[in-house]
């Protein structure tokens, strides 16, 4: 390869150069700003994680697998996976190989960063080497790969259903500009390289295509315009990138190491939150996943639209979207980038100004403390508010505790304080903390070593936010499954068939999926729902939503029920009083808590 253009410059590179400088500058400034918007301890944690070999390696691996290969997307949808990774990985390889070419043949030109991009323009093929042939082959190969991805992308744009996506987002004007320029980049590159193939050389794609073209057009008049067009397409794409969904490409590369460093959303708009919503690729997977989508009017209230409105700063819509959400976490479970929709929303709710702040200072916990301290037991059972409305769960739990011979007492026999999770979900963290302090006092006063809860809502907050070192917080589904395994709760297998509904707070919230299923398998046939585990569908009763009214939740519940009953179970089993209450209202078959099912299958001790 020899340099064809003296001075290694031609004006057509300018659009690209300008775009590249702009986007790099923009992203750099953005990164720095985000970094400094983090609280001091988060900044420290982030820096340390970058130099810790374990996380550093994890960062590289995650960025490679997620940003380039899109492994998660592959798992979900192969065609989409291929489409994304072909473009991302193919493009990445083109850039990488371009650099390899430059370093190999014209190492002194490495400092011109546009050089690898327009390599074929600047060089002439002096002699065909093996290296050159291999590289050229690879270049053509990856270009073909990207082009195949682009073709899929064009098809997806107009026929998204082919890819299994029912609903997708409507791109904004700039998104379209970015999209069309992206689509244009690679065909133009193909054209440009095709036209210069007889000078710079080419491989299986560009060379025959070049020869084909030369049959019709013999002069080289059109060579320069195609390179111009290619550069302009690149330039446009780079310039609009920060203002389009494609911002997710650079944002995600920062999001991954920050997440790996354990950083959380602390401010509704700054720092990590900003990074999260810039990382949203606007793919719209969350639209179909969102349980609220059971009603058409809620389609624009899922996380992708939250991210979009957050970027636009549309306060009215941000508030509507934030308040409506059930906080079930399904969007995060399906999100390729892992944008934390619920956390972002809670942060928006926390930001809200309330003139009237609840104050629980006047509540005297002394009598409750005295009551639990009066008869210390190993296990303290906190039934919680919701369980008071589903006495069957409480009764079943009591029966099981009795049957297993557990030394226990109830923390709230006459109704206790709320656990604080509903307040947290409403964004009233400080108030929640007041309740947490009071409840901790009572729990500590009881002298228990295990805190048993039957409500996943309580369970989550006890787990996440209560300073209860030395006390095991356990959900009844886990607790009873252990007792069954240990033989302390003998259960019978019967012919019943069940489906288990994962409560949002227990499954996605706390990662408990298998214990309740294991317990059910010992008692009958366990069917799975259409969507289950991390992708289970919220019952619709969630306290997460502030604004969804009773009537509007009905369709959500019906949709969730439809999903649960696809495999025809006799009984729907859940492990949450709120789910039980919600499903019970509309279900066409029995809905029971795990504890109730256990009581029914309890072997009566033979004397």
């Amino acid at each position: 390869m020899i340099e064809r253009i003296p001075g290694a410059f031609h004006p057509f590179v300018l659009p690209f150069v300008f775009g590249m400088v702009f986007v790099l500058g923009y992203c750099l400034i953005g990164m720095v700003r985000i970094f400094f918007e983090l609280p001091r301890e988060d900044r420290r944690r982030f820096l340390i994680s970058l130099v810790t070999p374990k996380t550093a390696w994890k960062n590289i691996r995650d960025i490679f697998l997620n940003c380039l290969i899109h492994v998660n997307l592959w798992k979900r949808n192969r065609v989409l996976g291929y489409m994304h990774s072909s473009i991302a990985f193919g493009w990445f390889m083109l850039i990488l190989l371009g650099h390899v070419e430059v370093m190999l043949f014209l190492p002194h030109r490495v400092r011109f960063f546009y050089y690898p991009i327009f390599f074929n323009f600047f060089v002439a093929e002096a002699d065909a080497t093996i290296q050159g042939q291999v590289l050229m082959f690879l270049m053509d190969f990856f270009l073909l790969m990207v082009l195949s991805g682009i073709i899929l992308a064009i098809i997806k744009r107009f026929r998204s259903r082919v890819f299994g996506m029912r609903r997708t987002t409507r791109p904004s004007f700039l998104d379209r500009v970015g999209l069309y320029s992206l689509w244009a980049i690679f065909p133009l590159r193909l054209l440009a390289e095709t036209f210069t193939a007889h000078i710079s050389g080419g491989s299986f794609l560009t060379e025959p295509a070049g020869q084909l073209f030369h049959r019709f057009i013999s002069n080289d008049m059109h060579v320069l315009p195609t390179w111009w067009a290619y550069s302009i397409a690149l330039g446009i794409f780079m310039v609009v990138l920060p203002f389009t969904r494609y911002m997710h490409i650079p944002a995600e590369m920062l999001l991954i190491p920050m997440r790996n460093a354990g950083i959380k959303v602390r401010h509704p708009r700054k720092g990590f939150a900003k990074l999260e919503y810039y990382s949203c690729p606007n793919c719209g997977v969350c639209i179909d996943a969102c349980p609220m989508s059971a009603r058409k009017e809620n389609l624009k209230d899922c996380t992708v639209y939250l991210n979009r409105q957050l970027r636009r700063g549309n306060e009215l819509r941000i508030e509507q979207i934030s308040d409506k959400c059930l906080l079930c976490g399904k969007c995060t479970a399906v999100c390729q980038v892992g944008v934390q929709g619920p956390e972002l929303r809670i942060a928006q709710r926390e930001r809200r100004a309330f003139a009237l702040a609840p104050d629980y200072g006047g509540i005297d916990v002394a009598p409750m403390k005295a009551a639990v301290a009066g008869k210390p037991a190993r296990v303290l059972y906190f039934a919680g508010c919701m369980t008071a409305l589903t006495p069957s769960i409480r009764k079943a739990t009591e029966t099981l505790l009795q049957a297993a011979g557990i030394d226990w007492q109830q923390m709230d026999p006459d109704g206790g304080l709320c656990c604080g999770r509903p307040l947290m979900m409403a964004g009233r963290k400080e108030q929640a903390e007041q309740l947490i302090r009071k409840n901790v006092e009572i729990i500590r006063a009881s002298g228990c070593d295990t805190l048993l809860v039957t409500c996943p809502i309580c369970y989550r907050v006890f787990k996440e936010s209560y300073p209860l070192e030395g006390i095991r917080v356990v959900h009844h589904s886990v607790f009873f499954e252990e007792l069954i395994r240990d033989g302390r709760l003998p259960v019978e297998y019967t012919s019943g068939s069940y489906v288990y509904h994962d409560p949002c707070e227990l499954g996605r919230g706390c990662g408990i999926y298998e214990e309740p299923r294991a317990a059910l398998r010992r008692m009958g046939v366990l069917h799975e729902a259409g969507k289950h585990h991390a992708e289970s569908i919220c019952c619709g009763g969630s306290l997460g939503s502030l604004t969804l009214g009773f009537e509007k939740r009905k369709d959500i519940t019906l949709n969730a029920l439809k999903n649960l009953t696809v495999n025809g179970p006799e009984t729907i089993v859940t492990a949450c009083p709120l789910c039980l209450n919600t499903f019970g209202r509309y279900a066409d078959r029995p809905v029971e808590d795990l504890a109730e099912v256990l009581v029914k299958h309890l072997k009566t001790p033979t004397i």
Partner: protein
Amino acid sequence: MMDFGFSLAPSSAINLDTVDLSRYRKLLELEPDARICMGCGSCSATCTAAPFSGMSVRKVILGLQRGQDREVDRMLSACMLCGKCTMVCPRGINTRHLILSLCRICADGTHKEREDGR
């Protein structure tokens, strides 16, 4: 003013002619279902905060319509937002959001201490 050792006592009656309903009207914009409360008291009966404070959503909705702002605020500040009232409401009123909305309406500066006619 001469001190007689006693003075005019304020009226305990609610004068619907002078009651300030601006807060209630604002609430209706955010939560129109506040209208359909029939005062059954399910919400108060199930309320987690009630045993500690006398909180009652029923009384909050009513108090707003009768200008009992001080009492309403006192009750609102006891709510733990547990959502049980919403679960039991026979008319399906989103009481939890109603409470949150009310807490915000105060923030808009419409909150005035106002007792009947004085």
